[in-house]
């Protein structure tokens, strides 16, 4: 009997004008959104490859240990077509150097920063908005409409339990929405396969399937709520109005209001005030200058003053260092190293609580919003699409870990005690072979050596950075509470509908 009611509901919905209009609108919106987002993905992928090539080139140029640094790039995720999440909001590049623990990722320089005031659309958002609206259109008169037309009484005059009617209506509406949603997803996948730079992996297909199921669950919640409203309100016209107001609040008003209230009442330190209190960098710079002057004064005549100031953005690169200079510099750089570590630690300790605070604020906003079905489902999909905040945190952590990898590599080479720490002379180099008669000659030799591939240190044994996304199980685990919340609301609405319908006056 349930199947009969389901079939009737399904057919009624399929032949209705509202279904055709809504389905066409959903298909147009989803194909349009997919196309734009795939194009954006391709652009970001290109940007990522350019950045990677630059990072490799930069690594190639490093000739001394002290200058060791790396640019770590996070590849864009193809599933951001479904759920953009924080993919384009937060940075995708981390700069790792020996004396700077990364705390944040840098942004996309190619983008216009002023476009932050606008927002895009993704497939999940379109489904939450449009399919949510369609679900309400299909259910606002599910019970009161039948009652008004008198068909409810006729159905109940047969030997049929009330719960079967309710279940039949739920499953009928669900089917008439799940199938078009499936078609839309299929369309999105085909477009991705045709337009994207790369094809989908097996794991990504699994993730898309789970996103689909999660969205079906969300649509199920809206159907339950629509049925509940149609039971509680006698007049179909009023129930439609109430349904639409509910949709407006659930999909648009409440997620933004809740987030805004949380942000406004969360006590955090303003950035500029915090930045103004940070003078560790300046102090270290002043210390360095003083130290360099002291060094120059102390070692006057023992080292060449001109090469001592050959300091680069990352580390030092000296040439033509003799045995006496090496010994003096080694002691100096050991001292410099300890101070730089202290400075890095101080700066990290100063800024870490600030960034943690921002992170806590963002987490709180997400937790508050996860109670709302629309926000909850979007968060779950972000988690599956690996564009969530958790993924960004993992990326930052991988950057910090890579800094440790670099130090381990240097310690293994006893780099701080070696000449290669600050000098890129080839092994066995003897300065006395170069009798310079004037400055120009010296500079010419310097230029030749600059391009000398022989002088570059061997970096083939440094472990390469490779960003790995969270695996499927972890992604599900991270979004499980949000998914549970939507299932919870779905069950509550359905149980209430059941309870009310069992005592419903069908006259």
């Amino acid at each position: 009997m349930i199947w009969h009611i389901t079939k009737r509901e399904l057919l009624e919905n399929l032949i209705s004008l509202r279904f055709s209009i809504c389905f066409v609108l959903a298909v147009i919106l989803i194909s349009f959104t997919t196309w734009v987002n795939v194009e954006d993905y391709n652009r970001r992928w290109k940007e990522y490859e350019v950045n990677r090539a630059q990072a490799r080139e930069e690594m190639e140029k490093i000739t001394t240990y002290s200058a060791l640094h790396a640019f770590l790039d996070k590849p864009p995720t193809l599933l951001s077509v479904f759920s953009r999440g924080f993919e384009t909001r937060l940075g995708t590049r981390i700069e790792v150097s020996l004396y700077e623990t990364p705390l944040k990722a840098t942004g996309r320089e190619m983008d216009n920063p002023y476009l932050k005031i606008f927002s895009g659309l993704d497939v999940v958002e379109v489904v939450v908005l449009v399919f949510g609206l369609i679900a309400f259109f299909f259910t606002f008169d599910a019970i009161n409409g039948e009652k008004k037309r008198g068909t409810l009484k006729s159905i109940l005059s047969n030997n049929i339990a009330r719960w079967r009617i309710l279940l039949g209506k739920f499953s009928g509406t669900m089917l008439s929405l799940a199938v078009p949603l499936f078609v839309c997803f299929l369309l999105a996948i085909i477009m991705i396969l045709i337009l994207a730079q790369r094809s989908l992996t097996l794991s990504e297909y699994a993730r898309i399937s789970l996103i689909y199921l999660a969205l079906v669950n969300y649509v199920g919640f809206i159907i339950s709520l629509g049925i509940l409203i149609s039971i509680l309100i006698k007049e179909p016209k009023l129930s439609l109005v109430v349904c639409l107001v509910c949709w407006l609040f659930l999909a648009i008003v409440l997620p933004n209001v809740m987030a805004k209230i949380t942000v406004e009442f969360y006590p955090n330190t303003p950035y500029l005030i915090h930045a103004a209190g940070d003078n560790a960098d300046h102090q270290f710079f002043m210390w360095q200058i003083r130290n360099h002057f002291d060094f120059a004064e102390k070692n006057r005549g023992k080292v060449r003053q001109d090469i001592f100031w050959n300091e680069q953005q990352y580390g030092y690169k000296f040439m033509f260092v003799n045995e006496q200079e090496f010994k003096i510099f080694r002691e100096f750089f050991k001292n410099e190293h300890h101070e730089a570590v202290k400075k890095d630690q101080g700066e990290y300790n100063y800024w870490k609580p600030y960034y943690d605070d921002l992170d806590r604020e963002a987490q709180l906003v997400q937790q508050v919003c996860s109670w709302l079905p629309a926000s909850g489902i979007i968060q779950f999909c972000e988690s599956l699409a690996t564009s969530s905040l958790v993924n960004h945190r993992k990326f930052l952590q991988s950057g910090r870990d890579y800094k440790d990898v670099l130090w381990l590599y240097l310690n293994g080479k006893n780099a701080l005690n070696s000449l290669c720490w600050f000098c890129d002379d080839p092994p066995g180099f003897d300065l006395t072979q170069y009798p310079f008669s004037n400055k120009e000659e010296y500079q010419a030799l310097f230029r030749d050596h600059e391009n000398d591939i022989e002088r570059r240190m061997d970096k083939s044994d440094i472990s390469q950075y490779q960003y790995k996304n969270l695996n499927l199980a972890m992604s599900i685990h991270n979004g499980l509470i949000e998914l549970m919340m939507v299932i919870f609301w779905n069950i509550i609405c359905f149980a209430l509908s059941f309870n009310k319908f069992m005592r419903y006056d069908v006259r």
Partner: protein
Amino acid sequence: MKTIFIKELQESLAGNRFYLIFAIIILLFAINGFLYSKKYETMFNEYNDMRLKTEDEISKSATNFRSLARAVFFMYLPPARLDFISDGKYAELPNSLRYRVDFLQSRSYAVSQNNAIKILIEIDWMFIIIFVLSFLGFILSYDAVSGEKENGTLAATFSNAISRFSLISGKLLASLVLLFGATLTGVISCLIIINITGKIPLQIVDYWKIVIILLIVACYIVFIISLGIVVSMLTRKSFTSLVVLSLIWVVLVIVIPKIGYLFINKIYPIPTFEEIQNERDKIREYYLQKLKNLEYIEFQEARSKKWFDTGNDDWRVTQALFNKLMKQVNIIKSIANISPFHISKSAIEKFLFTGMERYPEFIQQGRTYFTTYQKLMIDFDKSDPDSRHWFLNYISEKPVSTEALPQFHFREPGIGESLKQSLFLVLILFIETAAILTIANVAFFRADLRTVQA
């Protein structure tokens, strides 16, 4: 018309629909009042702290002209008092300019910004008007004609001596009074909350601006209701009318304003980071080449000139890029203005000088201030006979009176200037409203008003 107006008013007041709308509007305006009182306080305190810090730094450096000339200061953009009406995502935009005697640079980060928080829509008056009021307007007017056709009351009404124009005007006026009344109550409640909390120091001119905004909102409400009535006339059933209106709402309020953003890099691409960097490097290289092979005095004089020339050329590159970035923003906004719903938002944003309208003005005022500051500094150095005028190394070391130094204060444009800025968009809104009103009237004159089965 008066009878129809009173009948419509009484009918709406007797039903639940209006009270639902009324409660939603009041609630949202009250939330807006509370939230923005808190937000403005936080932002203003932050701005004030930073401004005082800069003033303190200037007075400390002023004991010696050389250290003043070498010091880097900041100009800050204050938060707008009327941000609660149209926020324009102020917190997402840069809010300061960095300057020294030889350069002016814009900064890329903003006050209290947390990128890890994704708030798509700010809860300002614009949100309430564009998203909620329009939706509620449709709910109020979707069955204006189709509902009466279903009930059979429309045919009965016309059995009396009543013109079609009177009927439609009466309906429109009643809906306008109801919706505008609810909005006005919401606005008053919001202003009461703001005044009670006392965090936003509203001035008389702000109240005048609010009055003008309310006039624009009234026009906007007429547009929504007219659209509702037109759709209600063109559809046979009130349910279909509401479905169509909801879909129109989704397209005009949500989809169209996003189209420009999604396509902007195809419509108007901007130069890449590398291209900009190369241009800057070329400028530096050009001036470095000029300094080569000069004798000591010539070198010092040329280097002194180079400080300013590089700064100016660098600013030229920055400004050219800024103009391109702004053009992208303006294209997106223009595309969004295809939606009549968005036009009122753009008009009010322009009128209030908030959001993205405020920032270019800040840059312009900052540049004017910087030119004055630079001229004053050069003149001061020239007036010192002991100075060799070789910026920034061999210059005057005399103390500078801080009173002689100009202070940067962002000048809020006057009401006339704001009106002039937004006039074009307001006019378009008026024209669109007049057009939809005419369509509603013409359609109603030609409409088949026979009763239909619900």
